[in-house]
């Protein structure tokens, strides 16, 4: 991948050497950087989310660690079922995510098979591994991972999503073992849970404090485990495509889904992961071909990109 050059350059910058004149800490003073952290708390209307943002009002409907299924009555089930169809309706408002999903999974399968030393031609390569899908939404990523053999825990701070995800996962015996929890990464860290791989796709651009979020992700990973994070680059091209075209022209996403100022550049992501003891090994971009309507993996990380990193061995 072309971004390997970028990564090696970044590593050269960030590796602590005493011969450097410029202290890297002054280049990206993340803690005091106002540009990234000046994002407002949930001013934008909450769309059926691509990721999750902890909304202050929604936390009281059910205790966070309890399984959702037993406390619902028929009226609620009916309401959730109606919404469940849209989340999982491949032609509905979540169509871009459904179309992009196999491409993301191809990257995840290839990197994680290599990381864990599994046979890439096996039908269930992740058998016996524990994964957590942070910000799982309706479970679009969790279900394929479960079908690939992983023991998946899906967490989302929005309870509606967890209900939808649980309803859909129960339809297929292969995915009904997914554990869905309405909680946050920080809470899981407090419970001292550890996973072989932590995945947070299209989440970090909706989080208030990305550096703290990455530290939580890192704390959830076992030593030597894997992390996969995907997000959108903070570039002019990304503004043009992911916000102007996708939200305003093509109406792929509800307006206000993304805030350009909360996007992260690949360099920033690598650095904050570095601080959280995760070394980024590979990065790839997703490119959409409007003629064929297909997404594909590429070296072009200027709009959507995905990063695979490993937790440093302690």
């Amino acid at each position, binding site marked *: 991948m072309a971004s390997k050059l970028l990564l090696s350059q970044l590593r050269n910058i960030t590796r602590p050497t005493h011969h450097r004149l410029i202290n890297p800490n002054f280049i990206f003073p993340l803690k005091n950087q106002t540009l990234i952290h000046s994002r407002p708390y949930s001013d934008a209307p909450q769309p059926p989310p691509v990721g999750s943002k902890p909304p202050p009002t929604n936390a009281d409907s059910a205790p966070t660690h309890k399984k959702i*299924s*037993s406390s619902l009555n*028929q009226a609620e*089930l*009916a309401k959730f*079922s109606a919404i469940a169809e849209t989340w999982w309706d*491949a032609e509905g408002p979540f169509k871009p995510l*459904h*179309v992009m*999903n*196999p491409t993301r*999974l*191809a990257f995840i*399968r290839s990197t994680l098979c290599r990381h864990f030393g599994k046979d890439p*031609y*096996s*039908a*269930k390569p992740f058998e016996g591994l524990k994964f957590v899908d942070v910000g799982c939404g309706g479970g679009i990523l969790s*279900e*394929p*991972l*479960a*079908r*690939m053999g992983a023991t998946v825990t899906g967490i989302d701070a929005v309870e509606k999503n967890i209900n939808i995800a*649980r*309803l859909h996962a*129960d*339809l*297929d*015996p292969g995915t*009904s073992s997914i554990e869905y929890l309405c909680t946050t990464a920080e809470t899981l860290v407090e419970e001292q849970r550890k996973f072989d791989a932590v995945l947070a796709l299209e989440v970090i651009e909706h989080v208030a404090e990305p550096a703290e979020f990455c530290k939580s992700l890192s704390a959830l990973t076992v030593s030597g485990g894997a992390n996969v994070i995907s997000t959108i680059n903070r570039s002019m091209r990304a503004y043009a495509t992911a916000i102007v075209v996708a939200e305003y022209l093509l109406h792929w996403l509800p307006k206000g889904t993304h805030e350009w100022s909360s996007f992260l550049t690949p360099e920033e992501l690598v650095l904050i992961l570095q601080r959280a003891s995760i070394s980024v090994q590979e990065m790839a971009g997703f490119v959409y071909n409007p003629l064929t309507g297909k997404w594909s993996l590429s070296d072009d990380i200027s709009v959507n990109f995905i990063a695979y990193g490993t937790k440093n061995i302690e």
Partner: protein
Amino acid sequence: MNRAIVRRITPNIRTWRSTLKTFCSDTSEKLHGSDGDKAVTDSTDNVPQYDVAIVGGGMVGMALACSLASMPLTKHLNVAIIDSNPALLARDNIKKEDAPDPRVSTVTPATISFFKGMGAWQYVQLHRHAFFDRMQVWDYTGLGYTRYSARDVDKAVLGCVVENKVLQRSLLSCMEDSDVKKKIYPSRLNSMTLHKSSLLSGTDSISSEPSGSLAKLNLSDGDCLYAKLVVGADGSKSHVRKLAGISTTGWKYPQNAIICTVEHTEDNRCAWQRFLRTGPIALLPMGDNYSNIVWTMGPQQAADRRSMNEADFLKAVNDALDDGHGPHPQSERIGDGGILAWLRSDETSSASEHFEVPPRITKLASDRMVFPLSLMHANNYVSKRVVLIGDAAHTVHPLAGQGVNLGFGDANSLSRVIAEGVAVGSDIGEMALLKRYESERKAANIAMMAILDGFQKAYSIDFGPLNVLRAAAFHGVNYISPLKKNIISYASGEQRLPLFT
């Protein structure tokens, strides 16, 4: 009086037991017909669940099952094959001394490599099969002919003629030798329902419906099973297609085909096809001095030819192949000098071959069978959790021997798409995956069907100027090498679309 009561009770018990058998959703009765019980009874109510249910165990259905069994990504899938043909469960082998069955197929090199990839071709080689490396096509006007040779495209063979039962048996043996989980259900499909999730209806908790969105198939002998994907490989009158509500486009040809096996004195390694006024007659080599005849003509004539005695029939066949109905074409070559000399530099070897007369038929070696011909194309190949392959999706005229090869192409494509789906953990019955199969195959199938239909129409009209045009086409194809090579590659299945590949 006790005897009267007993007599009345016993029929009731019998009917009660038979209703128990058909009411298969919530009894724990053992399903009959389970040999070795390789099914996965995963659900709470003992109805077996399969990943793929292939309805129709003919050549194309078995090819799909075999292909899934041969790929590491899909080896673990549970496959159920539903076909009431007793030959599938029969263990008797095809003997060498059996008379050659008239139902044969010409498999193209692309299909041969598909079979080799699955490991099934070695089983075909144990039985009678005949490669041919030459082909000659001409018509009754005697104005032109075309000869094709495998050497034109630097290959060894143009195709292979194999009996249908040999292909089916080979695929079955290949599957049995692999350790894939499969079960053959010897019955017919009665009905199929898409099991919707019953969240709104019942008062049960959510987790009591593990097979929420699977397809449920009810078979004619009372069995039922769930499947994530239902494959309709049950032929041109596909029941699965009807149940899925997929409409078709097409028309019947005003022709029937009469097929039989014949014997001749000389060895034959060439495929012959002559277009007569009523339809083409083809002579396909089967090895051991046998050949297969596929003769297309009007329905009334077909009935007559079928019922006439053997001697008359053989005379009719020899006339049709030789110089009845019209003269032999002259073996011409484009002039040695002059305008067209530049064409000769790139000439294929078959362009220099002279016209040959097909071998004389001496004996009829099998019964004569008659089949109606039609063109049919399903408007959609996929529907929710249902996909069609083979003749269930399309039927064509046999004039180019492409029908089953299109079906094998479908099976190849579908098994690859399923493997890609399994690799990224998709539900194999979801529409996005199935639509990828459809977009791959629809274009290729429609192109081939259009071309074959065009040929059929072009050769069914006896009109002076059109005859001359056809003769020009024969000459053109014979002498213009790029065109001939393109045609051979396309008919061999090496390229998917006739142009631009």
